[in-house]
């Protein structure tokens, strides 16, 4: 069930490092590490009528059903990684099957090399990254990365980007039958419009989604930026054009300076701020978006704990993504998923909605 291959980004290295168990066949057995203990603590599932695994209920307590629908796709649990903050490498480090889905790093139409160093840093306000979304294009993604995502045994949501509204649909078309859903990362500068984010312009969002809708029947999620005049307008544009969900939101553009030299720390000068300090800002956006549209809102921004997730659910989110928190605690998303289930069990309720009703009563 658990892949223990050591994966790296370089095909060379990957080829050269096959199953580590062969090299150290006794390592895990001889020295159980905390990771092994964490895997072993997986909750027991049973399968319900609709074939979704559900926590085996304690006698007298209702079965907990955390499943959430994004268009035609049903996720077992409403917790998934944020784009760019997960890779198949984690398959050996955490029980990925306890997540609702995986989300890939954004795939662009053409190959991109990424930004100059430094590509990321940490400042008191949070993490700032300007990785620049290196991409091998859809063909490269399908050849090298997708099989490794597919092997993880949870739905793969493929994140898709573009430099102009017209670039998204061709990528989705090229990805064909692969992936369970598409997340359209519209926090990308629109080269047709002075570099303003596509996602800050409801008309451009409409254009992107409508075009993608024509080339796929799979669920479409639109991931919106923070710096927009009206998140409600942006979310409505996505919904009206046929999106199945919106993800709110991406990281917040920021410009970290070196305290000593006063120079930009990042090679790209500007990067995206992420982590817990953006949560109060994103909470408001999720609240507003949830009131504006009927489709599910997936919250993304500073989720570290089950309480952060519940905060987002309480303002209307249907699912959460965990980004920055995974770097320090690779198991953070799994812990949130387990925690949601446990809270429901502890409260003796069968769903998050019931849990929240109980909390506010």
């Amino acid at each position, binding site marked *: 069930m658990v892949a223990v291959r050591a*994966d790296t980004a370089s095909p060379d290295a990957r080829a050269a490092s096959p199953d580590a168990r062969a090299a150290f066949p006794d390592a895990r057995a001889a020295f159980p590490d905390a990771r092994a203990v964490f895997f072993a603590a997986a909750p027991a599932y049973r399968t319900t009528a609709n074939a979704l695994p559900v926590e085996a209920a304690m006698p007298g307590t209702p079965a907990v059903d955390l499943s959430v629908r994004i268009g035609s796709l049903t996720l077992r649990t409403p917790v998934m990684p944020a784009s760019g903050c997960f890779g198949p490498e984690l398959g050996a480090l955490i029980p990925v099957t306890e997540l609702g889905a995986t989300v890939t790093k954004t795939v662009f139409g053409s190959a991109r090399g990424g930004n100059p160093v430094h590509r990321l840093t940490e400042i008191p306000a949070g993490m700032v990254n300007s990785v620049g979304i290196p991409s091998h294009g859809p063909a490269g993604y399908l050849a090298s990365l997708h099989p490794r995502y597919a092997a993880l045994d949870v739905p793969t949501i493929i994140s898709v980007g573009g430099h102009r509204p017209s670039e998204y649909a061709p990528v989705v078309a090229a990805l064909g039958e692969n992936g369970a859903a598409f997340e359209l990362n519209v926090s990308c500068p629109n080269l047709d419009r002075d570099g303003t984010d596509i996602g800050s312009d409801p008309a451009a969002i409409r254009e992107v989604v409508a075009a993608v809708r024509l080339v796929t029947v799979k669920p479409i999620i639109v991931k919106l930026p923070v710096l927009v005049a009206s998140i409600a307008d942006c979310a409505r544009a996505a919904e009206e054009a046929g999106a199945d969900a919106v993800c709110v939101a991406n990281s917040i553009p920021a410009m970290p300076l070196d305290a000593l030299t006063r120079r930009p720390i990042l090679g790209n000068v500007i990067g995206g701020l992420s982590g817990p300090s953006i949560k109060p800002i994103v909470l408001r956006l999720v609240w507003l978006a949830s009131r504006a549209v009927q489709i599910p809102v997936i919250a993304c921004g500073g989720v570290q704990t089950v309480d952060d997730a519940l905060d987002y659910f309480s303002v209307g989110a249907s699912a959460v993504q965990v980004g920055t928190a995974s770097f320090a605690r*690779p198991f953070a998303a799994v812990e949130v998923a387990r925690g949601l289930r446990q809270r429901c069990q502890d409260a003796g309720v069968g769903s998050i909605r019931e849990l929240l009703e109980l909390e506010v009563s």
Partner: protein
Amino acid sequence: MSADASLASEGAPSPGLLRQAQHGVDELDRREAYRQSREAAARARAFAEADAEALDGLVSVRPRQTVPRPQPVWDDAEVLVHEPVGERYRRLVVASSTIAHTALAGQFLMITVPPHAGDTILLPRPMAIHRRRPATADRPGTVEMIYGVVGRGTRALAAVPVGGTLQITGPLGRGFEFDSGTRSALLIGRGVGICGVMGAAEDARTTGIRTTMVLSGRSAEQLLGRADCAELGVRIIEATDDDGSSDLLTLQNSLRARFDGATPERTAPDVIMVCGAGVLARLAAELGAHWGVPVQASLEAHMACGLGYCHGCAGPVRTDPSVEGPLVCADGPVFDARIPVV
């Protein structure tokens, strides 16, 4: 690890101190503090630029590994030793039998810094595995790190008490590798970069490779690794800023002279392994070119995942703009270093 860059920033008062100085302290002190901070800033910029220039075109991903890479794990590791080393460093020994058992020379860990009195550190910090001590019948395996306290993360790390636990992920990256048949090695480390190459000295000891290590640093008192080298039977060459012996040209000349082939003891090493500064990697590459031996250099980069998926740790390798260069965490931190043919 750019020991120089950290030296540069450590030498100067923090902005906090400066701020304090501004209020209530006498004007000349304030001016002096300001002058020092500006000098430190200039030094930091100069080092960063020299490093980047030295590495330009120098490194490439090494061909496939001969040894399969161990599967990284994360572990909650007990802190067994956490103590100052000299004025500027801290030694950290943690128990993790899995990692101690599997780690290869030159690999590193990501250390998750626990929250410290309201300050939360988001990103784990990469640290070289200085020493690996596999489990024995009566004690768990341990890994040792030595680090400098340079910023928020290492400051918070320094507050972790002995007996506490640290979450660590590793072993990570591609380390130093000896080709079979290697009989002698020259290792070069500067500052905490000495920890980057010490694993190679451990391996050399195991396989009977004759090893010399350059320990470079600001002053003789501050040099790391003397006791480790003694334990591992490694011959030491000290190179310090204080007496000028760490100066790049001086060091290059003295190493050339020492390995000039005049006696069997003085034959050129079969391989050079270096860690601690871009300029030292270039020096090593120049020596390698001169002697006709391969050079392996360990580099650093800001990292988030350490596993190869965040793409944050681009290595200083120029590539076609549409192709992503190698990642320091997955394709390195150890790269081949070769003087570019111009």
